[in-house]
């Protein structure tokens, strides 16, 4: 592995407890960073506020998809049982709407849940397997026991020294450059 294939793409500051992380995050937020993130082994309560993030838009997707599900269910049942092939069943009217309710509900849930999963995958940018965190050798710590702040070099506020200083001032004792393997070769 040659150094040419490694590129510094930012800074990562590691913490051992959520409180320090929170403080550092607030500092970063206040410093006006935009392209940055915190990485934690578990969801840390209050971190969203500390990072200055708004609420997740996932519920809007869910509720919209759910109502689409109800619409699909109603149209499907109505068209199939009333319009396309009206079959007389058990003396019940063709448009037996009470009987159509369970399936409307089920399709509401199915559509809502499916779209929620899709939205999560999309919004969490999942399906990208590479990460500079791997290349920097900190991923294992993050998914196990440590907390990290990652500042992206592309952020307009980013400068290697000043940003490191910001993190250290905020209480981070372990600041490392965030590197990424850019070569085609397999790392490690």
């Amino acid at each position, binding site marked *: 592995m040659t150094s040419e294939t490694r590129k510094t793409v930012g800074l990562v500051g590691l913490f051992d407890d959520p409180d320090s992380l929170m403080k550092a995050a607030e500092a970063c937020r206040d410093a006006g960073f935009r392209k940055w993130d915190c990485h934690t082994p578990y969801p840390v309560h209050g971190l969203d506020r500390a990072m200055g993030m708004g609420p997740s838009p996932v519920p809007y997707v869910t509720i919209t998809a759910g109502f689409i599900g109800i619409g699909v269910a109603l149209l499907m049942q109505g068209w199939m049982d009333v319009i396309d092939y009206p*079959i*007389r*069943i*058990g*003396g*019940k*009217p063709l448009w037996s709407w009470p009987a159509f309710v369970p399936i409307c509900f089920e399709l509401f849930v199915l559509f809502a849940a499916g779209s929620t999963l899709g939205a999560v995958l999309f919004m969490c940018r999942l399906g990208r397997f590479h990460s500079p965190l791997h290349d920097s050798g900190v991923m294992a710590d993050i998914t196990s026991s440590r907390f990290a702040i990652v500042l992206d070099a592309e952020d307009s506020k980013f400068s290697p020294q000043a940003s490191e200083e910001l993190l250290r001032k905020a209480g981070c004792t372990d600041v490392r450059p965030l590197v990424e393997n850019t070569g085609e070769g397999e790392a490690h």
Partner: protein
Amino acid sequence: MSQMPEKFRYQGLPSREVEPRTPPDEYSRREAIKLLAASVALASGLPGCIRKPPRTIISQAQSPEYQHPGMPLYYASAWTEGQVPYGMMIRTVDGRPIKIEGLPGHPLNRGASSAQMQASLLSLYDPDRLRNPMKGKDKAKWADADAKVREALQGGGSVVLITRSSLGPSERAMVERFLRAVPTAKHFVHETAHDGARRTAWKEVYGADGEIRPSLSKARVILSLDADFLGNDGITLKNIRDFAQTRSVEDGGVKSMSRLWVAESGMSVTGSNADHRIPVQPSKLAGLAMALLETLEGKAEAAKAFAKSAGLDESVVGALASDLAASAGAAVVLAGAHLPAAVHAAAALLNAKLQASAHLEWCASPATLPVSDPAEIRAALEGGTDLLILLGVNPVYDWPGGGFEALLAKARTSVAHSLFADETARACTWTLASSHNLESWNDTLPEPGVYGLCQPVISPLWDTRQEAESLFRWVKSLGTDGELESCQDWHDFVRLEWKKGVLQPASDFEYAWESSLRAGIAGAKTAAAFPALNESKARELAGQSVAGGAMQLVIQPHHAVLDGRFGGSAWLQERPDPVSTIVWDNAAVLGHSTAAKLGVKEGDLVTVSAGGQQAKLPVVVQPGVAAGVVAVTLGHGRSLPGAIGDQAGFSVAKLLGAKGSATPRFAGDATVAPAGGTYKVVRLQTNFDMVGRPIVIDTNPAELAKDAQAVQKKRHLPGDAEIHASFDYSKGHKWGMSIDLNKCVGCNACMTACMAENNVPIVGKTECALDREMHWIRVDRYHTGNPDNPRVYTEPMVCMQCDNAPCELVCPVDATAHSEDGLNAQVYNRCVGTRYCANNCPYKVRHFNFYGYTGDWLKDPVQELLFNPRVTVRSRGVMEKCTFCIQRINEVTFKAKNEKKPVVDGAIRAACEQACPAAAISLGDLNDPASLVSRARQSSLAFLVLEDQNVRPNVWYKARVRNPHPDVHEPAAEGQAH
């Protein structure tokens, strides 16, 4: 119609039109294979090449006359069922008979048909039939057999000919010619389920040979002394029709209704229909009849006194006596064929006293030959014979007392003519394969002067010959009978007989013959005066004491297999007993008290012994059987070549020998003892209690007199609340059915007719035991009251075609849905088999193919010819049920639409309706105010079964009306408003 059956020869499978219906399962299998093939094809890049295997249409080379592919042709014919000659009408499609109906113009059955008649179709296509003559176990040629017989006949040695009793006039003539041509020959008649004892008694008291036939249509009071005239004693189809007429109650008109009194030992179909039933041991019947006679003669207390001494219900017997006394000229007494002469003599005296001859017909030329005394046959055979010819009899199975094999072995040459390789056929040196009734020419004598003509509707399927044809050839081969020289074959001989006989007055014989073929019947009834009773002789006979012990044995022919001749018929074996609903078996039937006394319960094996003979049978405990009576039936325990009916049940032939020839079917000194062990007897219905549900409504004249709307008040109408509008069925057709419970006697003929029409599979005893029978129509039976003498209700159940069909609602795939004419359709090819519909059906008329019953039953391609091509054959995993014979409805309505004519009421007849001898069932259009079914619905007797379920059924029942004698205190009628 033509006298040339060759024209209608079965020609293989000539076109798609006559291709037997492949079970839909084929398709699913095919689909599966297709999918399999698809994956292969996709892989190998050959999509689009996957089709069903090609099928061919084979048009005929030449078109037969009259025959339109796929369209039915009807032939009139005749058939003798046990002892009774009925007429039948056979529907053939593309040259194969597929359904038998009663002949509408026949004087005895008038279009009705019995289960046996229906089931005779099944035996035509029975794969276990003998297919060629056999010498021992080897296939033989007819020529060799004929040569052998001729040699023996010419040898001058002793020849014995044993036939059944039901020989037609031409057959009798042939036998006479045979006896003339072979002077050393003796002819005997062998039957077990016969009325020999009764005919002998009549001969003695009336001084003439003949038979008495009830003619009940005008009778007001009927007393049956153990005579199951609605079940299996006599011309039941006619009796049921006549009896049903006397029970017909049009709104409020109950005054002309008959009253049926039954004094009987077992529990019979007749007993089930009784207004008053007196369970009594057979030995006491003569005494009862004589006591009644004494009462009629003025000794007022005689009947009651006898009842007291005999342990009978005094009030009932007293009422019976007064009813008879009040009904002279309108009353009639019938006595069972199995009873000793004393009872018949007493009945004759009673009838004379009651001036009953208006309700009895004297038939001077009975349809059947008198039966020979087995002792005479034994005597003729014991010394050894050169040639023993057995035509259509099976003495090895049913010889009274058993042991015919030894006699048979003494014959140098024994020749059996049989439809099957039965017990006797297997023991004979030569076995000749008989043709089926549907492949034969024959005639019958239903009434004096009236001849039935039986014509073949299909060429013999196998290398077979009818019995009479063999007899004809043998006699002709002797060359001694000059008149036979003009006849080529048996068919010519029948023509000759008719030319000389019934058609003799006709100027144009050919025309008259063709007309007879078309009608199936010829000649006119010659009435005979009722002979005078020899009263002193009768009194002498009636005075003879009848030995009667604590346990008395009655042997009756089986309701379905009769004396065993239909033992191989699956349709008949699976037809439940009309009283106990047993299938595939017979049993020793005991009443509750007798069983309790013996310490046995249903299914326990017992030994029934009488006169040194014994038979082992399982017990069936049947409410209503008189104390001290064991009732058994003939016809089971056979050893048959096929799997069906083989070893089903137990043979009681040995017991027939217990009392010699006088009363072979009754023994007054029987014993029943537990034999240890149990045997599974299967009843199709196990619960006979209505548990207070609105299933049957009954009423009686008194109640109706008080309130003509009594039945309507007992109906359990559902509430009016409807949360949604129903579909409108008031336009176009709306099919419905009416079933008159007051006419239905519960004979179960409809069940077999339905099986034949609708390709209903049989499932076998094991599956019946698991409650998986497939009958689309069944006759439910309910008992109320005293378990030792219950009131019985019979109720045919079909699919009710409910407007609010609960089955439809729950089917996930729309496999059952309503049509615009109000029918609940069942689409077999759509059904996935969830069984949810059957769960939700309150009437339990849906039946699931738990296995591929039809497919499993098919062993031979010939069986496929049986299927009605108008009805899909169902495969495994499919729900099926009564369709109101939609194929018949469609046939008629399509034709009417094509011709732009309205559908006439009565043009559409369901198979059950057509078979019903009581005319209790009617299928029709509820939107047609004049139709029978509309009128039934409007009747004040109309009700619906389980009406409170609000499923809106379309089968309208008419209430059962009982006609109790006012002197007898009756428990309340069933179905009181709650």
